[in-house]
């Protein structure tokens, strides 16, 4: 294990994680809203926001899937050291992180069951950028409607159609995060 795996965690975990969670919760509660998520310095190519989400939410109880370019030794070691989350394939993952293309196909992840819709995966999608433009979002958490740059509108609509089952998404770019839960209705602009 490289020594950099030991670095880049939250300097003051209880407080940093509390602040990061607030940003993550605000994002999930208000789909489309872009929040800042700082505090973590993960190894490349993991973004600061994705790193903070992982430190805040993942631990030995949450199997994780690293997709594509993120499945590299530096990231694996960092996650293992800081969270202890077991690294697994998509089907067992509680969290998965990667670029949109690498995370495909979406039907490989858990979407919950009708009795336990919460037992579904949360995907952390690394985006080149995040902007309040593009697809039109409506639904719980959104006053009237809002816009967010989504990687694939059709796929998000198919996911929303599964409600109350489905996957929930965090979209991350550098130190910014937005979320798209399954409850959000998505329209092309």
């Amino acid at each position, binding site marked *: 294990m490289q020594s950099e795996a030991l670095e880049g965690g939250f300097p003051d*975990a*209880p*407080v940093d*994680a*509390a*602040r990061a*969670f*607030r940003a*993550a*919760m*605000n994002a*999930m*509660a*208000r*789909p489309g809203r872009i929040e800042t998520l700082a505090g973590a310095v993960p190894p490349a190519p993991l973004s600061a926001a994705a790193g903070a989400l992982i430190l*805040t*939410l*993942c*631990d030995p*109880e*949450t199997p994780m899937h690293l997709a594509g370019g993120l499945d590299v030794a530096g990231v694996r070691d960092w996650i293992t050291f800081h969270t202890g989350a077991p690294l697994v394939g998509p089907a067992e993952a*509680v969290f998965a992180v990667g670029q949109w293309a690498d995370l495909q196909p979406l039907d490989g992840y858990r979407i919950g*069951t*009708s*009795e*336990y*819709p*919460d037992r*579904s995966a*949360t995907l952390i999608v690394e985006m080149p950028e995040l902007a309040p433009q593009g697809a039109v979002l409506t*639904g*719980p*958490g*959104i*006053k009237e409607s809002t816009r967010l740059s989504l990687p694939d509108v059709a796929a998000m609509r198919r996911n929303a159609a599964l*409600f*109350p089952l489905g996957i*929930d998404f965090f979209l991350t770019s550098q130190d910014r995060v937005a979320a798209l*839960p*399954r*409850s959000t209705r998505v329209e092309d602009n």
Partner: protein
Amino acid sequence: MSDYNFAYLDEQTKRMIRRAILKGLAVPGYQVPFASREMPMPYGWGTGGVQVSAATLTPEDRFKVIDQGADDTTNAVSIRKFFERTAGVEVTEETEAATIIQTRHRIPEAPLSEDQILVYQVPIPEPLRFLEPRETETRKMHSLEEYGLMHVKLYEDISQHGAIATAYAYPVKVEGRYVMDPSPIPKFDNPKLADCPAIQLFGAGREQRIYALPPYSDVVSLDFEDHPFEASKADHPCDLCGARDSYLDEVITDDRGGRMFVCSDTDYCRTRQAQGHLGAQLAAKQEGAA
């Protein structure tokens, strides 16, 4: 208490609760099971709300706790003190100044804002529990969206009493999908659940459930076309501040039938009095003193 972690709970417990909160927000009104911990206060006294607050608080927050709408009821005092001690957060009694409000049995009268989080203490999170005591059955009913039993119960009330005989913990339907227990708030408060700019989180410790309403959620109190839902309260103005729009407590003042009605939301009442609003009894008293 300084030996304990920030906001009392250990980090792994907080992560588990935080994950449950996020899934609750993603599926509004659905009760997410969580491994509720044994807290240093009894089950039934707000352990669910306390765990949700503990997982949500940051050092920058201003925390308010109300029980029955009041900041000074003993259990509210006790919970407020717990977080003052374990999280070092600033506390307030002003609804508008608070960023997190933990509540038992009321929604504050002052409209909430986007920057606020309302945390409810929930005794029995299952709205169908009194119709069907078995968790194994009610879970099935939710999964199949089988809420006929609830409508039958409400309709039986109407045929027996001429009205729906549920005055608090009045069931609601969230986003057209899950029937949800709003916690034992008086039905007067039900309309405030809907279209609320704040995040609403519900924690049931003993029953190990967390659920949530994202801001601006669609929340409808169950009713019938010929018997529409009615948010009711005592038909009086507040005797201290004169408010006509607030939920009132009836206070017995003597043993000869004397009584008065006062706002259950103590901050709302105090704020109005400070603004110069006077209720009948307070006005009479001031006149007497003058």
